[in-house]
Structure formats: structure tokens, C-alpha cells
């Protein structure tokens, strides 16, 4: 892949947003997006974890799995790296910044099961990104996810007093809003394309 890391960063936020075009990280996106504040907290945590786990997974894949010819173990190894990193982060935050722990703490377990984190690691392997590209892709995907959940939370907080059919409340209307957001983001697709 001869695409600059800088371009990749912007493309990951807008033209190939991890949530709006690749559908990753939907579960926590739909369940946490009721409040703007908690959405921002989760979005920042996701971005932070994404940058570090893509870097770690890239190193593990290229310096451990490839030399020993055990690429087929990548799923297990990546999941363990992500779970271990989140666990470590939780311990460190609890030890050194208790205030941050109480705002961020509840979101950290949610991140291990967020498929956007695992998905970005898999995309980076399939698309043969180098180290710098992977970090840019991870950071861009995290910010793109943050942008998407922030927009949904903002719209949902305005919808609270509106009359919505009972069968469509909650997940249904959120999916429709997401669809409209995805339509709007297609408008960016002329800027850059990454596959």
C-alpha cells in the first residue's frame, strides 16, 4: 500500500468511517449513545485503546507471528493483546488518576468487546499497512467512531420529547438516524478512497 499515513488518517475519519461504512462497534454505539457526555468518554477511551492496540498488534504480527509462521493464530493473539492492554490500562488509571477512573472506568470493560478495536487490527493486516500507516489508521478510526457516536447522541437527546412509534423507539430510530448519517458521509467519498 503506497498511501500516505496522513491521507489514511483523514480517510479513516470521513470516507471510510469504521462505523458508518464498515458497521463495526455497533453494540456499544447503540447502547451508550443516550447521553452526550458518556458518549464522549467512551469515544475518547476507544480512540486511545485503538492507537495502542493497533501498534502492539502490528509489532506482534510482524515480529512474532510471521517469523514463526503461525499467522493463523492471529485471532487468538490479537484478542489476548487487546484484553491484556485494557486490563493493564484499567489498573494504571485506577492507581494514578482515581478521578479519571470514575469517569472512564465503567467504559473500559465495554471496550474489550467492541468489535471496532479488533476489526481495525484485522483490516490493517489484510490491507498490508506499514507501522506508521497502522497507527494513523487506528487513530483515524477511533476519531471517526467518536464523531459518529457524538452525532447520534446529540440527535437522540433532541428526540427525547418527540413522538416516535413504540415499535421504532430505541434501536429502530437510532438505526434510521445512522442510515441518514451514512448517506451524508457518502458525500465525502470523492475526497479519498481506501480499500
Amino acid at each position, binding site marked *: 500500500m503506497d498511501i500516505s499515513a496522513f491521507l489514511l488518517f483523514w480517510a479513516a475519519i470521513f470516507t471510510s468511517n469504521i462505523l458508518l461504512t464498515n458497521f463495526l462497534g455497533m453494540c456499544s454505539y447503540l447502547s451508550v449513545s443516550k447521553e452526550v457526555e458518556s458518549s464522549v468518554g467512551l469515544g475518547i477511551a476507544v480512540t486511545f485503546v485503538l492507537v495502542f492496540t493497533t501498534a502492539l498488534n502490528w509489532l506482534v504480527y510482524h515480529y512474532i507471528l510471521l517469523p514463526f509462521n503461525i499467522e493463523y493464530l492471529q*485471532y487468538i493473539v490479537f*484478542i489476548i493483546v487487546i484484553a491484556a492492554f485494557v486490563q493493564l490500562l484499567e489498573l494504571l488509571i485506577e492507581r494514578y488518576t482515581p478521578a479519571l477512573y470514575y469517569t472512564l472506568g465503567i467504559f473500559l470493560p465495554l471496550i474489550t468487546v467492541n468489535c471496532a478495536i479488533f476489526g481495525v487490527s484485522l483490516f490493517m493486516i489484510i490491507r498490508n499497512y506499514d507501522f506508521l500507516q497502522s497507527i494513523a489508521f487506528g487513530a483515524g478510526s477511533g476519531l471517526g467512531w467518536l464523531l459518529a457516536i457524538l452525532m447520534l447522541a446529540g440527535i437522540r437527546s433532541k428526540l427525547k420529547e418527540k413522538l416516535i412509534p413504540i415499535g*421504532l423507539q430505541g434501536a429502530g430510530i437510532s438505526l434510521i438516524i*445512522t442510515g441518514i448519517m451514512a448517506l451524508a458521509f457518502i458525500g465525502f467519498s470523492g475526497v479519498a478512497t481506501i480499500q
Partner: protein
Amino acid sequence: MNRKEIFLVSAFRENSVWKQVLGICSALAVTNLMLNSLIMGLGFTFALALSSLTTSLIRNYTPRSVRMIAQTLIIASYVIIVDILLKAYLPEISKQLGPYVGLIITNCILMGRLEAFASKNPPLDSFIDGIGAGAGYTLVLLVIAFFRELFGFGSLFGIRILGVWWTNWSIMVMAPSAFFLLAMLIWIINKRYYKLG
């Protein structure tokens, strides 16, 4: 509950996709073609049913503190088998599904079924429950894929259904239609099946 009821409950009444809206990432991503959806659904059912069986078999020997990591490793092992089988026998489809086969590991439906059912029930019941949940998931995939492939490509399973007069709706191939179709499916099921609103 007898085994038939277990199957029906986990496939329809407690269907993870439309009842709890879980695990929809891959449900949306692979549904632009019927064939891809069917293969994805079968792989998912395979991984879920066997993970349920395994989790249930070792449920009395697993300490509670390592339960989650044990379940994750069991799921990952079966997903690796699915991935290797697809690469060997259906390389073209494996390439089209891309990372979404691997993403079965982080699909919340699997963890949900293992936690809610397989860690408390006997092996054969858990196996049936896994097949039921997998069948329910595959059904949703196929329903969405039916509309997306029919209107987006004018075909079903790659066979041309609509004639030359048909203009393909390119929006059906792209992401937004998947969100709209799932929202409509959930709305219809809430109204007709659960009698809400």
C-alpha cells in the same frame, strides 16, 4: 422446556438480533449478497453451536474468575476452524467476507448465549440453543440480503431475476440501505410479533 421449545425460543422469541439488537456488525456488513450471507450464517451457527457444547461440557470445572477468558478462547478456536475451512474450500467467498469471519469472535451474540445459557445447562440442550440462535441470526441475514441483492443487483444467489428493464439501485449495495432495512425489520417485528404500538 423440551428441546424443540429451546430451539424455537432462541431462534424466534428471544432472537438476539431483533430482540436485543446484538451482534449486528457482521449482520449488516455481509448482506449485500445472498450467498455471502448464507455462508456467514452457517459459519456463525457452526462456531456458536460447538462453542456452546464445549462451554457446557466444561461448565462444572471452570472457575468463575477465568470464565470469560475461557469462553473467548473456545470461541476463537472454532472461528479459526471456520476461517481455515473457508480459505481452503471457498477461497473466493473467504476473500469477499474479509475480516468479518474473524469478527465472529467479538460478536456479542456468542458471548451472550454462552453466558446466559451454555454455562448453566447440559451439553445437548446448549448445542440445540446454539443452533437455534444461529438459525435466527442466519434468517435475519437472509431477509436483509434478499432485498439488498434483489434491488441492488437484480439477482438472487447470483442468478439474474429481474430483466434488462431493471435499473439497479446502487444505494442498496452501499452501507445506508443496510441500516434502513434492519430498522424496518425491527419495527415490523415489534409491531406484528410482539404487538408493540
